[in-house]
């Protein structure tokens, strides 16, 4: 295509202060580009301290206007950082933005290599690759798509509730989907919140009620999202609404059915296995919505066909055993995932004996134990439900900061443990030991709380507990749990007999986080948490446009941080909604129909169903509105009859040639 005319290319090499210039001989790269790449069309090569500064940008704009540059190559940082900056600058000077390319000589060269000569050579070859490539770039136009103003919030914990309320209060509709029978999340299970010791339910329930009654919020509990298709602005979402066996239109939430239900089962969810609930139940008294759910696998009627006590006593005939699961389809413009976390299964740390030694408790068990609405009415007792402990050991970092389990710090456990110590001291007067590796109390008023607990006489032992055992070695250990630990500050091994052990188990990604991520098209880090678009500067966005994340779905967080993220994600969604339309990158595939033989090999390539086979013409065709620009079909076409903008064969081949030019 360019046999007669090589487009005029300008090359701009950024020093990035000393970030690049410290490792790459910028001057040498510029000179080399000017001389050696002249035959490839380079008419000007410059270097500048900070290309991204306004002065740097003006330099490029001026050259475009004065030298008639047709292509701009900026060798600086990653395109993910400043591609937009330079494309916008070039556009201001009248050059189509897609005729500007960035070469990453910072993230891929100066920051990762040390030998200046070698780094400089690599920088040259990268510049050469892009110079060769850019000759084949073509002007492209962005496409605009209108945005649906409805939003889906997945997860009804505190982060999701906050996000939903922010958007609803701004006047836009929200679908709030929660898979449990009630919203509220983990926070609804807690007794107190650190460091203020506010009653968790007291601060949470008003928010739950507001979300449940807000005219702009459609609350869908006992429901799960099963499928998402489409893209930012127009997601088609399929939601499974599980059968409650209770007619929500007539149920008043009076609770008579629960009262009359003759069957009790262990409540493994809300009561963390420490208490019982009926088979027709609302998880807790303040549940929103107030409608109960029938636990079908445990219901005597579903098992044996008799009972129906709930139906008999229901004053409004709301019990409906014939109800079936249904699917509901909605369309939304944006999605916020606030799917939360799972508690680490303390039984996995077998040396702590959880599940084997009765008086070893998990953190959530202790929350229920100390909760006045819990199974013991707030009495802190051993597993026998009666005996008050005289000595309690609280073990930090259970399942966290441990390569055998989770390598990260769960960030809340130190404060949670301090809270437990305080509650135990306050309610039982027992001696309390805290076993910690490091105390991490960095947020507002956290360290002060640590000092308060110190002041209360809690005994701190610095050392990760090796083992909890019931094998007494000495008479005074008989009948106790013995905590084996090295007191690292003393440098000696200690055996500390206690009556009760509380494991401060950490947070884990939801067991199905990966699957959920696949449903929504976002990915997890190796730990399993959802990946932010940028960990610092864009913490509630994902790589997928229109999908936002908030709360513990992205990693362990305390309540204030979860709430802040819920609000932040809502702000990002509102920003999108108010723009009314969204620009789509014009990276698209298209079929050259005269060359297409209709072999249909490409037809199975597209997961977005953008490729259709036109039977009459015996050709395949790409629907540009559905195409996401991955290029898989381009690579698949055996006839070379599919081309892809932005990443055409010519562009890549030229880039390979350029990269290898210095070899």
């Amino acid at each position, binding site marked *: 295509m360019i046999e007669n005319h090589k487009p005029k290319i300008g090359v701009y090499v950024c020093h990035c202060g000393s970030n690049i210039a410290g490792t790459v001989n910028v001057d040498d790269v510029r000179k080399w580009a000017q001389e050696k790449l002249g035959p490839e069309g380079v008419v000007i090569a410059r270097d500048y301290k900070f290309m991204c500064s306004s002065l740097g940008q003006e330099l490029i704009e001026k050259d475009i206007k004065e030298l008639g540059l047709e292509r701009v190559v900026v060798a600086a940082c990653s395109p993910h950082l400043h591609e937009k900056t330079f494309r916008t600058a070039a556009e201001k000077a009248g050059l189509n933005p897609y005729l500007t390319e960035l070469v990453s000589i910072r993230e891929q060269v100066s920051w990762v290599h040390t030998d200046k000569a070698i780094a400089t050579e690599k920088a040259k070859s990268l510049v050469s690759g892009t110079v060769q490539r850019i000759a084949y770039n073509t002007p492209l136009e962005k496409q605009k798509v209108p945005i649906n103003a409805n939003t889906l919030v997945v997860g009804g914990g505190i982060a999701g509730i906050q996000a939903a309320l922010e958007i609803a209060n701004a006047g836009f509709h929200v679908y709030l989907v929660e898979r449990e029978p009630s919203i509220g999340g983990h926070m609804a299970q807690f007794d107190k919140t650190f460091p203020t010791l506010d009653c968790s339910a007291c601060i949470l329930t008003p928010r739950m009620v507001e979300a449940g009654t807000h005219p702009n919020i459609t609350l869908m509990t006992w429901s799960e999202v099963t499928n998402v298709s489409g893209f930012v602005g127009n997601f088609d979402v399929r939601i499974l609404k599980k059968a409650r066996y209770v007619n929500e239109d007539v149920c008043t939430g009076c609770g008579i059915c629960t009262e009359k239900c003759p069957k009790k089962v262990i409540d493994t969810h809300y009561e963390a296995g420490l208490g019982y609930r009926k088979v027709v139940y609302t998880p807790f008294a303040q549940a929103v919505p107030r409608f109960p759910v029938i636990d079908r696998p445990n219901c005597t009627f579903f098992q044996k066909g008799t009972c129906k006590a709930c139906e008999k006593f229901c004053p409004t005939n709301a019990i409906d055993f014939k109800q079936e699961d249904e699917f509901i389809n909605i369309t939304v413009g944006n999605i916020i995932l606030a799917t939360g976390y799972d508690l680490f299964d303390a039984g996995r740390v077998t040396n702590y004996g959880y599940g084997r030694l009765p008086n070893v408790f998990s953190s959530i068990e202790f929350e229920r134990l100390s909760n006045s609405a819990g199974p013991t009415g707030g009495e802190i007792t051993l597993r026998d439900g009666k005996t008050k402990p005289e000595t309690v050991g609280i073990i930090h970092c259970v399942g966290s900061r441990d390569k055998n389990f989770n390598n990260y710090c769960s960030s809340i456990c130190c404060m949670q443990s301090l809270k437990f110590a305080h509650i135990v001291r306050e309610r039982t007067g027992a001696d309390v030991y805290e076993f910690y590796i490091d105390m991490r109390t960095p947020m507002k008023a956290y360290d002060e709380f640590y000092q308060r607990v110190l002041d209360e006489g809690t005994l701190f032992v610095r050392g990760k507990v090796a083992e909890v055992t019931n094998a007494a070695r000495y008479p005074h250990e008989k009948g106790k749990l013995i905590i084996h630990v090295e007191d690292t500050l003393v440098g000696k091994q200690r055996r500390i007999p206690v009556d009760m052990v509380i494991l401060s188990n950490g947070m884990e990604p939801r067991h199905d986080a990966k699957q959920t991520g696949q449903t929504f098209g976002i990915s997890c880090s190796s730990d399993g948490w959802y990946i932010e678009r940028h960990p610092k500067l864009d913490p509630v966005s994902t790589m997928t446009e229109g999908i936002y994340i908030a709360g513990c779905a992205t990693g362990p967080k305390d309540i204030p941080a979860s709430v802040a993220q819920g609000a932040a994600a809502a702000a990002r969604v509102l920003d999108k909604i108010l723009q009314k339309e969204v620009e789509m990158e014009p990276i698209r595939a298209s079929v050259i129909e005269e*060359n297409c*033989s209709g072999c249909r*090999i490409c037809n199975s390539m597209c997961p977005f169903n953008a490729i259709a086979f036109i039977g009459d013409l015996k050709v395949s065709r790409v629907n540009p509105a559905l195409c996401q620009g991955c290029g898989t079909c381009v690579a698949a076409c055996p*006839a*070379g009859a599919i081309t892809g903008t932005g990443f055409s064969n010519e562009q890549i081949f030229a880039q390979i040639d350029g990269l290898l030019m210095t070899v």
Partner: protein
Amino acid sequence: MTAKPKFAMYWAASCGGCEIAVLNTHEKILDVDANFEVVFWPVAMDAKYKDVEAMEDGSILLTLWNGGIRNNENAEMAHLLRRKSQILVAFGSCACEGCIPGLANLSPLNEIFETAYHTVSTENPQNIHPQVSYPAPEGTLTLPTMNPVLKTLAQVVDVDYFMPGCPPESHQIAAVIDLVIQVVQGKAELPPKGSVIGCGDSTVCDECPRTRNVKAITAFKRIQDVAPLDPELCVLEQGVPCNGPATRSGCNARCPRAGAQCIGCYGPADDVIDYGARLITAFASVVDAREPAEIEAILDGIPDPTGQFYRFNLADSLLRAGKGAAMSRPNAITSGGKP
């Protein structure tokens, strides 16, 4: 009446099938005779190289060259005929892309000689190994020297047009002859230099009457293992590696119509820089498996991928030769002889 334009046809490393294909145009061959003066065509008439050398440069209007460049004689003739011809056509798969002789590029020369002269399949009781020169009593006898790899015509000299096929279909030859005659008569224009002529602009599937669906292949099989082959359904969908999707149209889907898979003799479609790569990506793309072990098991159904994908195109592929041949040195030719 002016003198008739001159026509030549030459064969280098090829099988001779291309010549037969020209003769297969039946009475059309008479048009050649009527419109051209055949000055050089070793298969059809006697002529000496020195006669050609004596011709004025550019005096031949049209030369059809078939065969690849395997030895220095081929190369010398290619340069000579290029000089003498106005239009040089790489005629047939060997000239265009190396074809079957090009598969020898997978082996270094010494191995080729070793196989040809010194393996059990060759009866060679005196253990003769060919030499490029031999002092016979009558004087020194010489043979052309083998080049390390076979090249296509365009890799050696400038080529005006390419006419693919192994051999080119006779109806396509006839059409090209017609075109040239019309050009000679001033009734038509020549296509742009470098064009591929005598073929279609799509791939074999375009001309294939078989029905095709979205493809998901769970096993590749050899055609004799599929019994019976569904006569209506796409051959590839039946698990038989059919090169049709990647192979230039023009043959009228001769093999798939006859119940066989396309083996790819018409070479790549327009603007494709590596024919085999197109087949790799196409076949791999439609493999219906996700686990590496499953994928590998399916790919086991293509026992010789290199041969499958590069049967005709090896010499014109990006790599052009196997590592052994690519790295071989000229003296390799002599290493085969044993005392």
